[in-house]
């Protein structure tokens, strides 16, 4: 018995674990196979299994003295990177031309996951971020084969290579599930899978004080947020008897106050993930304690994951009834929250001298920009603005574009900090001093990342900010010129002011982004940092990929913009 969603033309419904299923989800399957291999291969050894009550020893190959070739501490990193690369490549090839089939997976009449342009877009984003991070970690957490001298740190690093990359892959898989989920329960499972893995990744350097502290902080705050979200889900189930997105959306029209409260609680869970104020307090500590590539994943992929939740809940399941008086309150709340988030993030970033905390606060500010965009879509969705649905799609596409290019320059900035961490900490601004003199290319790359974050043309950050503001403005203006004789300023919807707030904020943000540039180009390197930077081929390669993407997506982002539009279209907002 197939649900109604399968009836439409072009819909491709498959059962779980059928042949069609594996064909459609081959990249995800590769991720899982890679994860299993990561469990198995490093543990291959010469152990034997004695059959009970006999003296026969059967070779068991699992444990014991490890085989030298497969037991190399460098192997898990390579394996994880190769897995991610293969999966990512398959996804990109499949979806770049936009002729991808929509596949819906059903089981027992319930839509579990759906693969369309939207979810594929986010999967590509997640895998790209995790791939870059794991590539960078090959040097950042180096694996050595021992030649005589053993340092404690090296031993720690070697022992935990497999753990680290297993967690990385788990994060990737969890995020992919979030992107695919069509049922709030499945979405939550994916969210928790990814979250639990990131909690451990944040506290990965448990020997250092800040590592343990940040891990625990992030875990406690995160699990409280998840708990609240889960409570919201149970209330939703109480109200509707289902957690299917489509069914909740259909039944929402006559929802009671309970449903509204429930959805508010669910939003708390996602608000933590995108680090929107007032749920952002754990983010700076977590980023500062985690090693830089992981912090980069948190700031890009994890934020995008929360954003999926917000989009699904706010835009698919619309909050207020359209045209009702109460809707305005929700809109005002969301708008205010976005302004508070972006202002708080930027003002706090002004005062922080730790570059990682600064980037964390800037990530809070970016969350505010995206919330502002969602407010504008909300204004359309909830009937305050008269416009066809492509106006809303334009904003969603802009948000997607912004999330995607963040991977290029925000992760890139974290990777540069990661390179600095290889020769000591990167938790003070002075660690960056003289970087442009020590290594002009890396210094220039960092400066370009900063300019992109600030939104200076012609970099990708400018285009993304431009698109978001253009989306908000287009929505506030709507189709006034058709309906009104002459447009006066009071005809424009108030979300226009959010665009102004966003631009004023990005002007504030220039101050602290520029400070990094000044420190890098003007100051003298601090004591102990006079030598050239550590080499690290793969982390440098990752930085270069980010740099080229930042420049190229700014100069010719048309392909990506089209991809974003297709993704936004497949949400079927109207």
């Amino acid at each position, binding site marked *: 018995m197939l649900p109604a969603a399968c009836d439409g033309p072009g819909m491709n419904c498959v059962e779980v674990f059928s042949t069609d299923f594996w064909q459609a989800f081959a990249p995800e399957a590769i991720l899982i196979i890679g994860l299993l291999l990561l469990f198995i291969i490093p543990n291959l050894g010469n152990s034997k299994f004695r059959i009970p009550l006999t003296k026969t020893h059967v070779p068991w190959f699992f444990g014991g003295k490890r085989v030298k070739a497969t037991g190399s501490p460098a192997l898990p990193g390579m394996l994880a990177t190769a897995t991610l690369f293969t999966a990512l490549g398959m996804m990109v090839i499949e979806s770049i031309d936009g002729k991808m089939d929509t596949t819906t997976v059903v089981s027992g009449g319930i839509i579990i996951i759906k693969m369309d342009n939207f979810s594929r877009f986010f999967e590509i984003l997640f895998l790209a971020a995790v791939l870059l991070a794991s590539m960078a970690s090959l040097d950042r957490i180096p694996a050595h084969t021992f030649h005589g001298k053993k340092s404690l740190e090296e031993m720690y690093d070697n022992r935990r290579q497999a753990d680290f990359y297993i967690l990385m892959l788990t994060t990737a898989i969890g995020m992919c599930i979030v992107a695919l989920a069509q049922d709030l329960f499945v979405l939550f499972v994916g969210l928790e899978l990814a979250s639990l893995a990131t909690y451990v990744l944040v506290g990965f350097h448990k020997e250092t004080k800040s590592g343990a502290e940040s891990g625990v902080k992030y875990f406690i705050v995160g699990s409280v947020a998840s708990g609240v979200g889960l409570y919201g889900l149970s209330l939703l189930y109480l109200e509707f008897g289902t957690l299917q997105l489509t069914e909740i959306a259909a039944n929402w029209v006559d929802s009671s106050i309970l449903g509204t409260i429930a959805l508010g609680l669910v939003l708390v869970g996602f608000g933590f993930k995108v680090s929107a104020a007032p749920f952002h307090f754990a983010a700076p500590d977590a980023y500062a304690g985690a090693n830089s590539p992981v912090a980069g994943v948190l700031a890009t992929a994890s934020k995008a994951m929360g954003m999926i939740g917000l989009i699904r809940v706010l835009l698919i399941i619309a909050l207020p009834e359209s045209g009702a008086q109460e809707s305005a309150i929700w809109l005002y709340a969301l708008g205010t929250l976005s302004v508070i988030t972006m202002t708080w993030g930027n003002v706090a970033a002004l005062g922080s001298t730790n570059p990682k905390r600064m980037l964390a606060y800037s990530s809070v500010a970016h969350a505010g920009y995206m919330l502002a965009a969602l407010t504008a879509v909300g204004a359309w969705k909830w009937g305050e603005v008269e416009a066809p649905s492509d106006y809303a799609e334009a904003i969603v596409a802009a948000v997607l574009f912004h999330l995607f290019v963040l991977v290029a320059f925000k992760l890139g900035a974290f990777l540069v900090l990661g390179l600095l961490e290889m020769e000591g900490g990167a938790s003070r601004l002075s660690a960056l001093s003289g970087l442009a003199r020590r290594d002009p290319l890396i210094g220039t790359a960092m400066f370009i990342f900063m300019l992109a974050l600030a939104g200076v043309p*012609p970099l990708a950050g400018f285009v993304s900010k431009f698109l978001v503001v253009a989306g908000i*403005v287009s929505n506030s203006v709507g189709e006034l010129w058709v309906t009104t004789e002459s*447009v006066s300023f009071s005809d424009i919807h108030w979300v*226009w002011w959010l665009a*102004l707030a966003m*631009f004023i904020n990005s002007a504030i943000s*220039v101050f602290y982004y520029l*400070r990094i540039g000044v420190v890098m180009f003007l100051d003298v390197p601090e004591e102990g940092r006079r030598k050239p930077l550590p080499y690290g081929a793969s982390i440098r390669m990752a930085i270069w990929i980010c740099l*080229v993407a930042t420049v190229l997506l700014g100069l010719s982002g048309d392909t990506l*913009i089209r991809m974003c539009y297709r993704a936004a279209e497949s949400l079927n907002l109207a």
Partner: protein
Amino acid sequence: MLVGGLLIIVAGLMAFFPSLSDSNDSVDWISLPLVGFPILVSCILLAFASQETRARKQVIAGPIRLFTLCASLIPLGISTALFFDWLILVNWENLSYNQYELEKEYVWIETIGVSWHVGMDGLSFPMVWLTTFLVPITIITTWNEKDGATYHPLLLMMGGALIGVFVALDLFLFYVFWELTLIPMFFLILKWGGKDRRYAAQKFFIYTFCASVIMLLGLITLYFLQPEGSGPGYGTVTNRTFDMKELFANAAFYNEGDKVFLGKDMQNILFAMLMIGFLVKLPAVPFHTWLPDAHVQAPTGGSMLLAGVMLKMGAYGMLRIPIAIFPDAVIYYQDVIMAIGLISLVWGAIVCLGQTNLKKMVAYSSVSHMGVILLGIASMQPIGYAAALFMMFAHGIISPMLFAVCGAFKHHYHSMEIGAMRGMAKWSPYLAVYMMFAWMASLGLPLLAGFVAELMVMIAFWPEYGWWILLPGAVLAITAAYYLWSMQRTIFEGGDEGQPPESLHGETPPDITLSENIGMIILAIFTVIFGILPFIALGMMDDWTVAFFEGVFKAGGI
């Protein structure tokens, strides 16, 4: 790795540039030769030089400097040839409004209607020529600047970005170049500036960036308020365009006509938002505080380009975008613009009187002169607009000379104080002569370029504002006062032997170097040429102004 990265970027550029959208096969004289070439060459040189060690940089500075100079002469040659019609048939003098020569359009971001659309008319061509002219002059004048391996390429990049601003016929492209000019200037101030360069560079960047984002919001709002359309240049998704030519053609819709799209208040607000970006860049008085800081800290070459061309971006932008699209709002704000112009003029001049720092005085005199441009715009007379254009041009030649003199002063006397050097005429006769010449040109001596513009503004001012003309008239007297006074103190005072500055510790004050001499004499010659024969440039500007009034104000029913 470096080469690989460059190759990838170049390949990316190639991937979208050949998407030619017009059938016109004529040679593209703007995109690559005038804009792309300087920027690409300087990027390559910078990437190359940054890889070298400090000692090697000293060695390669000479060749790079020479190479940069040669590279900067190519755009100069092309723009000069374009002026004289040597290469191709361009007709600067009979263009009607919203017609451009050497126009080229390539699709850039198709989805939202952005194209690489470039072209020149009587408004932009003089500024383009001025930029191509000033870059080699600046390189020659500051030939001996330290770290030449990166300094001179940055000047070249600055030139390319500035030309980009003037030739852009697409709002998005315009904004991209508008912001791009900040980056080389930021580095020029940061790495070669004076003692407070950290503060000055950041203030410069943040101040102008803040204003620009407000302007950008205005542009975006304007973009979405235009009627939807389709065709080349229109976004495939948004159905609107950033193409200026298209916007200007539709601009009549915004005014009284068959259908009024924008209410008067909306027009006024958008006009004000756009003007904020341009007024800060100009700079007009309440927004001028970044300029003295930036100028005092900037190296000589940076100051020359900053005062010579970058300030004109503000005036150019005003004439190009807000005034052309919202003529009604110009009428509405006419008195405000006049007031801002007068205040800039008066305030700048009075502050100059109190300055002891030579470069700061010159910087404030720039503020004062930019006020004259606003007066020309506020006069709403064709002659006032032509005067504003000529003021931009004349000030673009005179002010680099002022800053070259200041730079030489600083370079040779290690001090910027007016009182530090007395009796310069004895010790440094060349510098004394150039200083006198530049000061005279700036205070508006007849037969020099500045005079023509000031006279024309006065003529335009009279019919509109009557006896208020006494105020700018008096300011011109103040201008003469501060210039003559500072000249008297530095050049002539101090008896027979003069008073060499203390910062030299008893050494003989040197005269200027050969390269400074060459740079300044060329500027002096052109100041005289455009003072005696202003019609060389003024003819084109006049025609543009007439066409502009025809196309904007008459068509708008004003």
